[in-house]
């Protein structure tokens, strides 16, 4: 059987997200209830979640979530990790057996810190050091895939309907200030666990409803900067574009949004001068990272969440608020099921970035 990566799989999907501006702990059970309402937007071939603030006991360690196809892959990957990291805790990720989730790989979690002498020898900053190790494992160790690598956050994903995936990972046992979720509807897939959303690197995670027409142009551009698109599912490239623009180029999340969902030139022509100059600069300087085709995405990052539609708004998305809680979903019903009475609800325009951050963390995008 061909895996994803050997065949290309376009997909439809549903997304949902919850964010507490005050940083209150939200149970993973709530996001499962939300995404479950959109069951028919998925077809059982992929579901996943990202939770932020879920590892308060290890806030300063990178939490690596890893799929292994075999014990050999595990041994090889662990040997590699031990060369670069101090592993302070390792365990299987707790799961609950269910008939709905089958063929699971070995699923392990490591809390790690870079070995100080390795880090200083590398002359890299810590996050770049970690990102390179993750890319290295995923591109060169057969059968090992690090699908989550941020601090105090974690991705949980599998082949299955999202509500079954959430139950499988016992998400009711986790609580965090932000959750995102994805239900996948690939039109043709041999299906494997790594191909489910979210796609994550460091603390950036992306869930995506849509299909990227510009995937190959974006892939060629991002691979010139050291990234390796190992999955050939389009969403992967969005994660790397965000990492590149925000972490490495120092753009704000809003600026990154204006690169990926750039305004049309005739819209730019009507802008006031300073805004026009900024928009022109972003389109010209990062032209290869313009993402075309339908998308609605949720980008999770430390202390924040960004929701963004493609500039033609070819996918549905609404944002609801109630007190300090912000909800974003492909369908309003997915919000109403967990918060029947909202203070407000609206549909952002195509290309309009909605940025939500912790009250305690002004700006938050860095």
């Amino acid at each position, binding site marked *: 059987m061909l895996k994803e990566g050997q065949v290309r799989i376009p997909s439809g999907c549903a997304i949902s997200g919850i964010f507490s501006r005050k940083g209150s702990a939200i149970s993973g059970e709530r996001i499962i209830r939300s995404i479950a*309402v959109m069951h028919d937007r998925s077809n059982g071939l992929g579901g996943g979640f990202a939770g932020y603030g879920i590892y308060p006991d290890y806030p300063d360690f990178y939490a690596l979530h890893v799929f292994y196809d075999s014990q050999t892959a595990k041994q090889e990957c662990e040997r590699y990790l031990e060369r670069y990291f101090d592993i302070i805790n390792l365990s299987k990720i707790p799961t609950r057996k269910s008939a709905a989730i089958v063929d699971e790989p070995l699923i392990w979690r490591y809390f790690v810190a870079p070995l100080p002498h390795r880090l200083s020898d590398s002359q890299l900053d810590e996050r770049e050091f970690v990102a390179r190790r993750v890319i290295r494992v995923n591109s060169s160790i057969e059968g090992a895939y690090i699908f989550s690598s941020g601090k105090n956050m974690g991705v949980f994903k599998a082949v299955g309907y999202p509500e079954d995936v959430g139950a499988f990972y016992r998400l009711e046992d986790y609580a965090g200030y932000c959750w995102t979720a994805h239900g996948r509807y690939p039109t043709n897939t041999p299906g494997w666990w790594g191909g489910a959303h979210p796609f994550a690197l460091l603390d950036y995670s992306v869930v995506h409803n849509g299909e990227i027409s510009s995937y190959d142009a974006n892939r060629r551009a991002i691979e010139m900067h050291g990234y390796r698109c190992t999955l050939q599912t389009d969403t992967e490239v969005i994660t790397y574009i965000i990492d590149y623009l925000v972490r490495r180029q120092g753009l704000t999340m809003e600026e990154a949004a204006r690169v990926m969902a750039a305004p049309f030139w005739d819209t730019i022509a009507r802008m006031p001068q300073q805004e026009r100059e900024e928009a022109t600069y972003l389109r010209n300087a990062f032209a290869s990272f313009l993402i075309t085709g339908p998308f609605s995405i949720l980008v999770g990052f430390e202390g924040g969440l960004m929701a963004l539609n493609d500039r*033609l*708004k070819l996918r*549905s998305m609404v944002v609801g608020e109630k007190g300090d809680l912000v909800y974003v979903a492909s*369908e*309003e*019903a997915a919000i*109403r099921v967990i918060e029947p009475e909202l203070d407000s609800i609206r549909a952002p*325009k*195509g290309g309009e970035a909605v940025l939500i951050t912790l009250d305690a963390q002004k700006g938050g995008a860095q």
Partner: protein
Amino acid sequence: MVIEANQTYYQALNEAIRACPDTEVIVDRVLGQRYLGCGSSGRRFTLRGTPGNGLGQYLNGSTIEVYGNCQEAVGDTMNDGDIIVHGNCGDACGYGMRGGSIFIEGNVGYRAGIHMKSYLDKSPLLVVGGVAGSFLGEYQAGGTIVVLGLDGTSEPLAGNFCGMGMYGGKIFLRGDRIPVLPRRLILQEASPEDREELRPILERFCRCFHRDLAEVSNAPFHVITPDSANPYKQLYAPY
């Protein structure tokens, strides 16, 4: 008859509604169930909550009144009947509509009324109380779209590409928040004949949502029509 929807699966809910012998059905706590009222004739549905995608698709004469917001593809290809929404509507509302009316109290999303068409005595009507997203009336071939701008903002009445590729029908815009329009459209102040045509439409809108007719009518109106003397040629790739 009153049906509680809650999280009943859409198939079961639609079957219950179809099986109900009453002409009038009230459905409470609707939560994302798709295709409600689809293709039906001669009935009246009152829905409370958030109906799912494809509400009233192919509607053929029934009336659907929604207390809440609607999602995507409301009244897709509807043929006859009325959909009244006390709230907002999502994207692709009234797509390919060929008869009947949709009245929305609030805003409508992207691609409202694309491919609307008319034939002989069939002429669809879409009225938006607030504002519309981009691509309003794209490829419109017939029928009437009205945007009233009663949303209390200063946003343009529609987003980008309003009436793009339009070749029939009319778009009425109330007030002066005229969007930037693509080429090959004619924008004119409403004539006395246009006003005459609008009057019963505004009356119906005001009846649906208990608005004051004088207040809604007392504003400038503009009409967008296609420039038939200058037809499209290579619309999306002119060079």
